[in-house]
């Protein structure tokens, strides 16, 4: 499913280059739930963006489903993100002026599907995450956990093979965080490949595999 070979990412820092990722090699099989752990600044979020076809590595190769992602042209990388990757962001990134259903539909805005089918899919996936009857609520009318579930629904509505989550419980209280993690676990149980970045040991425990990063290098990989 995912194969990273000698991936390096270096940023131009003010004083000296910042080596965010250094020679990362990682394989993730289809249907796995992998937690990427590490302290702040360890490079785990950079790794997630590299996996999500949003951040071209300085060196190395990223192959997902047999596609060498960074050999694709910019617009094809956008297509790849649309077809292959679903994101759950730390800040959830729900648009406050759109209802729950509209936020989910946003991920289908560029899909070549009839409007009715888009709506049906959005309602189905909202039902799947337990938000039936709340489709027309704006984000502020939903609880933190419900907002998290809308974010997950938006990430999976396009049925992407890969779900990437960046600190999905980072801004949630414990109970709400657990709800979102349970949801990710459910999706994984249904066959969804999930890669989650977290610094929370309890959150990482939901994953079947835990990869630790420090200073841009993998220091442990435990199943």
């Amino acid at each position, binding site marked *: 499913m995912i194969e990273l070979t000698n991936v390096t990412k270096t940023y131009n820092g003010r004083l000296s280059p910042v080596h965010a990722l250094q020679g990362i090699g990682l394989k993730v099989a289809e249907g796995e739930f992998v937690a990427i752990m590490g302290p702040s600044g360890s490079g785990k979020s950079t790794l997630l*963006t590299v996996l999500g076809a949003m951040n071209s590595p300085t060196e190395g190769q990223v192959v997902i489903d047999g596609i060498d992602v960074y050999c694709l042209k*910019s617009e094809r990388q956008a297509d790849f993100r649309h077809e292959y990757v679903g994101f759950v962001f730390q800040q959830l*990134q729900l648009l406050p002026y759109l209802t729950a259903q509209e936020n989910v539909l946003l991920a289908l805005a560029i899909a070549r599907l009839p409007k009715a089918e888009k709506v049906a899919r959005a309602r189905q996936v909202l039902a799947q995450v337990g938000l039936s009857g709340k489709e027309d609520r704006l984000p502020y009318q939903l609880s933190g956990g419900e907002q998290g579930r809308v974010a997950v629904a938006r990430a999976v509505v396009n049925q992407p093979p890969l779900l990437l989550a960046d600190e999905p419980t980072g801004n949630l209280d414990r109970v709400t965080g657990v709800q979102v993690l349970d949801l990710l676990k459910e999706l994984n149980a249904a066959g969804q490949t999930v890669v989650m970045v977290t610094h929370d040991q309890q959150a990482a425990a939901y994953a079947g595999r835990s990869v630790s990063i420090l200073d841009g290098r993998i220091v442990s990989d435990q199943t």
Partner: protein
Amino acid sequence: MRLIDVALNNLARRKGRMALLVLGLTIGVATVVTLVAITETMQADVAVKLDEYGANILIVPKANDLSLSYGGVTVASAAFDVGQLTLADLDLINTIKNARNISVVAPKLLSAVTLGGQQVLVAGVRFSDELRLKQWWEIDGREPATPDEALAGVRLARALDLRPGSELQIDGHTFRVAGILAENGSQDDDILFVDLSRAQQVMTKPQGVSLVEVAALCTECPVEDMVDQIAAVLPQARVTALRQAVTLRMETVGQLARFALAVSVVVVVIGALVVLTTMLGAVAERRQEIGLFRALGFRQRHIVRVILSEAALVSLAGGMIGWLLGMVAALVLAPRLANVTAAVVWDPLLALGALSGALLVGLLASLYPALSAARLDPTTALRSL
């Protein structure tokens, strides 16, 4: 949810900013529409008033040795020996390319006769055309109603002691003076005007014409073009353009049109800058949202399409409102500022121009903001990542 829905949602969410943008475009479009409408109205007004300004083309036979002065212009004199121009020639004038621009064709047959022991210039005219051509004529008495009635210039009337109702004998034909022309300082003060057909009989010049005055207006082409066209169909005639008030007024209108164009260019540039800065601001506000769109797989062209759709909708609104306001302003201002009597025309082409102009300016000015939005790095835009 489609891309256009994303654009509509954003417009609805940023009502204040977008209303300001619409206002800016409205003011720009309204200014241009007002100027264009007033200029067009003034051009129409010149056409309406053409008759009041008299002739601006003079047609005389080419080869005559004698000359006479008429209306302050020295023309070839066919006074006593006409034959090269006929009434049939008048029909040819109406076959020229710009025939629709001809307002009045006024033929004259001139002859000198002796009345009361004095040499008098008699002009045979078609009173219907002559009175249209010389709307400044003031008549003491009334307009001639029959071919045997005449109009006398005021100096001639004084010299021969003529009054309305007086009778004159010319070569055995009796003419009754229907009216006396008020003094206007021109050659007309010395002339006796009689009916053209009767003059042709009296002077035994059937179909004969000494000269033809033509009132014409060509807003798309110089009057010299029409002179050339008439000369082409009347090779035996000398055709001359007269610089009359109408020509001067047309030049004034032309200057105003150029001024309107210059102001319009400035307004369009300012409008474009307003759109540019507003859209750049809007894009800066939406960096995170655009980053989200990119993360969700929106292509760069999708982002461009969203931003340009917003710009197009705002521009069309500005164009429509601006056109309406501009027309209302023209209706109010045209009679006051430009002293025109012609009605302001609701020209659909102007409406189309206002809408398409606003759309073009809006889209062009939004292109750079749209492209810079599309080029935003999604990871930078999504600060949480």
